[in-house]
């Protein structure tokens, strides 16, 4: 692997006399990609430089949680760097040939900052930074949602990155075709009748659409673990593999779900602005209501639940042996009761 990485990085350091990969090790966490950190020691005319990198690799197809393209993620990262002030890793390219790294992969810059975001909450060691960090996080989300879609996604690759028939030509068509994708996917995720509430939610969402908003770039996995921070500022938004054109309320809704499942309180900050939603509305003027937040919490959660639960279903059917997929069943139960509460199930409180 180290040799393959060194060869890959030669594309970006054509003048290097030698490139050596060091300190290569897997990073735990991040459920949908195999992620590794490493340094590259580049010796060239300017002397020796040690640079930090991340290798993001697709898991084996049967165990994959999210089938999206590393090429598209590379293009998005570079486009965000060129067109917005949202801090993201520089991408150094992708390799889709599985012969090189074992599976399709990409190499990105390892950004500075702490990824231990749980330290910000529950009286953790960085709790004194939480208001400032989350304020900045909210500002970055607002910037992302106000970014020019045609500039960030000039070729339309983010309109349907999973290739599942989503039509982002209008808000109405986007919601309609996304819900069709969810409902068509239920058979794949309904490996157990316990998933009943997901079906009920999909059908209820279809019967009760909210008001339209302009479609924007959405991160797609905006959750309490997907940013880095230092000194009261967000240093990077990470894990863009589920980014797409969508309704901006999806990112807020998914954060609502993951805040609860992660035992964090992102949405309670910044306190002096009345919390995340109030500050976001102030920045964007979108006037998102708590009712809309609940609707999009379910909508966005199903967006992740469909591929995740499909992968779990493949594990249950013994198509692969990854332990992670079995582990995810129990913690995900919080989403089931969260949905039941939002849909008003008696006795679910």
């Amino acid at each position, binding site marked *: 692997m180290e040799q393959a990485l060194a060869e890959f990085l030669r594309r970006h350091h054509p003048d290097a006399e030698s490139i050596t990969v060091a300190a290569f090790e897997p990073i735990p966490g991040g459920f949908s990609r195999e992620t590794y950190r490493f340094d590259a020691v580049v010796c060239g005319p300017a002397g020796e430089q040690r640079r930090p990198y991340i290798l993001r690799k697709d898991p084996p197809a049967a165990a994959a949680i999210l089938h999206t393209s590393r090429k598209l993620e590379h293009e998005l990262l570079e486009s965000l760097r060129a067109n917005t002030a949202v801090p993201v890793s520089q991408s150094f390219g992708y390799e889709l040939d599985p012969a090189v790294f074992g599976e399709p992969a990409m190499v990105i810059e390892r950004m500075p900052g702490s990824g231990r975001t749980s330290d910000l909450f529950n009286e953790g060691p960085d709790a004194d930074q939480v208001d400032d960090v989350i304020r900045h996080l909210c500002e970055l989300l607002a910037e992302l949602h106000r970014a020019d879609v045609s500039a960030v996604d000039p070729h339309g690759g983010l309109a349907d990155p999973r290739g599942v028939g989503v039509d982002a030509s209008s808000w109405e068509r986007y919601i309609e075709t996304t819900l069709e994708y969810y409902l068509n996917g239920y058979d794949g995720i309904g490996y157990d009748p316990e998933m009943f509430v997901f*079906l009920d939610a999909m059908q209820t969402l*279809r019967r009760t659409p909210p008001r339209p908003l302009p479609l924007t770039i959405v991160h797609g996995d905006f959750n309490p673990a997907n940013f880095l921070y230092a000194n009261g500022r967000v240093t990077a938004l990470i894990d863009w593999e589920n980014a797409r054109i969508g309704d901006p309320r999806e990112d807020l809704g998914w954060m609502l779900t993951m805040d609860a499942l992660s035992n964090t309180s992102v949405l309670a900050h910044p306190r002096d602005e009345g919390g995340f939603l109030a500050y976001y509305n102030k920045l964007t003027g979108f006037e998102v209501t708590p009712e809309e937040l609940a609707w999009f919490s379910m909508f966005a959660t199903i967006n992740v639940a469909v591929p995740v639960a499909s992968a779990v279903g493949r594990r249950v059917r013994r198509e692969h042996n990854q332990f992670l997929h079995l582990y995810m069943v129990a913690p995900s*139960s919080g989403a*089931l009761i969260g949905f039941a509460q939002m849909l008003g199930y008696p006795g679910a409180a």
Partner: protein
Amino acid sequence: MYNSPDVDQYLEGLIFAINDEILPVLSTAKAQTTALMMQAVLQQLRQTIPVYLGYLVDEHNAMLEVVREAAAALGDAAGPEADRIRERAAGLGTAAPLPAPPVYGDVVAAHRVLGQALVDDARDLDVLQRAGDTRADAALAVLRAHWGPRYARDLATVTVGSGFLGRG
């Protein structure tokens, strides 16, 4: 409660995970041996759980007879020891036999069939609701009233700690 994955699949998954993800990176012979012992215990549990309650009931009911027959075999033997044996037979030995528990696989299968029926009901009710039949709203409320307490109980049962391990 989920019946798929069931308890057996979790235990089997742990055995695979120890083999595929733990053993290859253990660096001492003691740690490797402990991992192998853990696999053996997990396999023991897989073999035990499906029959555990049935065997306990079977053995309990058999012991009722053993206690009585052992006392009868003493005949009219004298002494405090013999008296205590007869007392146990007359007391504990006359308890009612326990009913046989249902077979684990049968319960899982029957549970699955009815659970799927509720899912199918929800699909059909959605068609009626979209056609404007408000009686379907009431029927859906019946289903939701079943699932609400069930989800609450299941969550209370399976929750370990808080949040997802392995994330920031």
